[in-house]
């Protein structure tokens, strides 16, 4: 053994050790909410999905019924607001590159993705919540849509950019105007990439907490329509995990297992779907 091979072995050892630590950390991060949460859900039974949270200090944790509804409506609304804007901006940046607006819009989208998400929340608070004088589902959806908008722009632009130029040439040679080329040839060609973008937008909206902290309100005991306060799953975990009551902490664990499960499966699906795009 010379000095170099000893150094090699030491380097090996250090790397394996630190990789062991981080993989253990990531593994426990993923598995802990699943184990703790499923235990709670099994104990509570179907009531976990069909009731409101119990009163603090009671035996049972109660359920996440209204939060599930709130989450679903708010996320759908956020995607419905952000996706069309993100889609069209992505198309513009890809179709008219090097124009002044494309460059500006791209930087704007990039800047928006760098804004800490809690600031997006207080921005909507300052503009929308203070103007309407109440927190609401719409306000939550608006702040979530700001959080996912830049990602849809990038996804759509990327999925159009990877299409080889010859298809565009072929479309033009048939005499198709540009808008038909874009919307009837290029977009359908990489529909999968665009759907992946849509799914990523859903996943992001589903897992963000900070934007909705001050905009969505915290209505865990009822659904008050689009104009009323609402809640999302991460918000429920955030609010109930911090309380000293054991049954509320259990409720937070149960909700976090749903959160983890959806997040894991969506990210696996997205990765698998994104891999298979070939031209």
């Amino acid at each position, binding site marked *: 053994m010379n000095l170099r091979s000893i150094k090699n072995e030491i*380097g090996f050892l250090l790397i394996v050790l630190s990789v062991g630590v981080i993989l253990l950390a990531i593994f426990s991060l993923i598995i802990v909410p699943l184990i703790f949460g499923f235990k709670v859900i099994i104990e509570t039974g179907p009531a976990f999905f069909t009731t409101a949270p119990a009163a603090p200090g009671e035996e049972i944790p109660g359920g996440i019924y209204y939060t599930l509804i709130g989450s679903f409506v708010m996320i759908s609304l956020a995607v419905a607001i952000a996706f069309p804007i993100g889609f*069209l901006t992505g198309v513009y940046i890809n179709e008219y590159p090097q124009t002044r607006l494309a460059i500006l819009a791209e930087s704007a989208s*990039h*800047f928006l993705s*760098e804004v*800490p998400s809690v*600031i997006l929340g207080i921005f909507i608070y300052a*503009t929308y919540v203070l103007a309407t004088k109440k927190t609401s589902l719409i306000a939550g959806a608006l702040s979530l849509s700001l959080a996912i908008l830049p990602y849809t722009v990038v996804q759509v632009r990327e999925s159009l950019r990877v299409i080889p130029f010859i298809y565009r040439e072929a479309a033009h040679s048939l005499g198709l105007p540009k808008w038909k080329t874009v919307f009837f040839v290029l977009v359908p060609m990489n529909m999968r990439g665009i759907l992946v973008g849509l799914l990523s937008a859903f996943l992001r909206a589903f897992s*963000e907490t900070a934007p909705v902290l001050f905009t969505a309100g915290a209505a865990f005991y009822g659904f008050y329509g689009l104009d009323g306060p609402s809640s999302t799953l991460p918000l429920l975990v955030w609010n109930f995990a911090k309380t000293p009551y054991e049954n509320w902490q259990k409720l937070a664990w149960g909700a976090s297992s749903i959160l983890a499960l959806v997040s894991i499966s969506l990210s696996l699906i997205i990765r698998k779907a994104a891999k298979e795009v070939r031209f």
Partner: protein
Amino acid sequence: MNRDMLRIMLSIPGVLLLSIDILLILVLFKESIPVFTYEGLRIFTEFQWNAAEDPAKEVYGIIPPLVGSMYVAILAIMFAAFFSISLTVFIQEIFPYRARFVIEELINVASTFPTVLYGLWGLTLIVPLVRQLAVKLGYVNVTGASIVTAGLVLSIMIAPYSTAIIKSVYACVPLSYIEAIASLGATKIERAIIVLRMIFPAIVSSLLLGFGRAVGETTAVTLVIGNAYRLPLDPFLPASTVTSLIANNFGMATYYKYEYSALMFAALVLLITSSFFSYIGLRLANRSVRIVRGEQ
């Protein structure tokens, strides 16, 4: 519908995006004016955060939480650098090729995992660990929620991102270089060190982008940092960051005359800081792409 019509139609959302950004900055500026006219530059010298019923008694200083944000983020990227570099070398050089996808899937899942779950995980696992460590180091009455805890939790959050960036650049290094290194008889670790030196700008840029994320992260940090308003010097004591300050105080801030405005000012300063680092990170990232392509 001719070509220009399409362009005009498509430019509407682009303009909208642009005006959202401008509005965002304008709103933050406008809302920070009241506290600035009230306190002036004292907001940078006061070391207390005092929301009082009587507006004359309100005092806000943003330096302690700002230092807290920086402290946590720097710790986080230091840990993350260590983790992501060893993960990259492990995946690229050591782990069997066919089994790589297992680690890659794990990292992928971790990178999209909800941040509130990172916080909950930190609260249940990392906080007790840090408390034990702190007790061993001779601290009494510590909860374990501290700067170092937040740094650790954030580093696990950033590491998947920076690993993905570093790994993709690492894999881009031309094969002829690898062959040249191998022909000189370098060991695996020596080869890894040479390649890592080549892609150094990419490593720095991935960490700077991670810095932007670390500074802006709210929920996970707020759950594990202990939320004590003080100038953070000792990494094992609780402190607060700008984001945790906002998360804890913003809900009630409009009841006081200036607190809302003070938090908006803190947010503005945070935004400027984080975009500065992300901008430098992005510049370096573009440069490193040119380097591995051999264009330098």
